[in-house]
């Protein structure tokens, strides 16, 4: 990873592909959570191009993920602001307000969750997806994947151990009711 960060920092275009494969899902998830399906692809593309353009400003002592996340969130908010601008496309005035979106904490959360999911082995990832997103039982998953139930259980156990380790830092904030769900990039008093 350090070598990838170093190559990315030098502007190596091959490193852009590698960075996308590592963080593309998480960046797209943040984009989608802020601007929705229609604009998420554009935001994700802008994010990686901006990151590549600004690679020389990346501090190699930091982790790449938070830096990419910050670019993605800011790009998404800027795109959202531009889309809501009253002078764009003949939109009627008086609709332009501060851009409200998911809070920093919540968008960081979806970024980190997606990263953790992407780091799972394929077999474990599918078990977790079917379990949490589909609400399937282990037996149903076993039937779907055509593997023994014991295999599903073992994959589930390993996956949840990995996820708990990767996402433990998020769990405390989930229990804090003071952490808001929505904020604004402009907070008029």
């Amino acid at each position, binding site marked *: 990873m350090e070598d990838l960060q170093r190559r990315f920092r030098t502007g190596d275009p091959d490193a852009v592909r590698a960075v996308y494969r590592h963080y593309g899902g998480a960046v797209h998830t943040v984009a989608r959570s802020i601007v929705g399906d229609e604009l998420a*692809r554009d935001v994700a*593309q802008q994010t*990686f*191009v901006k990151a590549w*353009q600004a690679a020389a400003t990346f501090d190699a002592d930091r982790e790449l993920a938070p830096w990419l996340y910050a670019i993605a969130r800011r790009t998404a908010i800027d795109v959202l602001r531009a889309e809501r601008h009253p002078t764009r496309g003949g939109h009627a005035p008086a609709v332009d307000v501060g851009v409200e979106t998911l809070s920093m904490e919540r968008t960081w959360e979806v970024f980190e*969750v997606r990263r953790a999911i992407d780091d799972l082995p394929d077999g474990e990832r599918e078990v977790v997806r079917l379990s949490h997103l589909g609400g399937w039982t282990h037996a149903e998953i076993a039937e779907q994947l055509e593997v023994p139930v014991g295999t599903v259980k073992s994959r589930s156990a390993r996956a949840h151990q990995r996820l708990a380790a990767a996402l433990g830092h998020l769990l405390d904030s989930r229990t*804090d009711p003071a952490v808001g769900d929505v904020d604004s*990039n402009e907070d008029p008093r």
Partner: protein
Amino acid sequence: MTEPPEYPDEPPVGDDALAPLLGNGAVWTDPDPDLEDDIVAAVGSEIRSGEMPRPDRHTGDLRRWLAPVAVGVVAAILVLVGASVLDGGAEQGTTGVAVALAGTEAAPDASAVATVTDTPLGTRIDLDVSGLAPAGRDQYYEGWLWNDDGDAVSAGSFHLRGGVGTIELWAGVGLDEYPRMTVTRETEGEGAAPSGEVVLRSR
């Protein structure tokens, strides 16, 4: 079939807490498969057009804004304010620094205090603005951090049509290397470089 005893029927570790995170359909939606190629192509296009990775470069004269500013410009104040801005999710940031910005001739009644905090996510700038008019039609404001070579990095944009107040900006660089700050008035569609129409400036 006999099940391995070490694996329980339900996910064993942190499942109750993880369930709200993992049950969010948004985190499971994959981008289009061709997005990767499009991004690499976009970077290739930047290379072919002669663009290379670098900070945004100010097109104006650096000396113009290093020169003594107009009477009434308030000296930048760097004080520790003990701010720590991230409540959760990411790690706590380091102590914030307050930077005073004064209005220029383009906005003589404007002033602002920026609380700059180095966080694991980058540099957070909470800009508390007063006396600055809402941006006009087709216009917006943009925050910039500058280094001593005259390179500028955008920290994001805003328009103040919702009223004055605190604006949250973020940059991928810090005050250690980019110690000066400006706010410019920009026009929609006129490029990503600073316009040169500075309305607020630190020293």
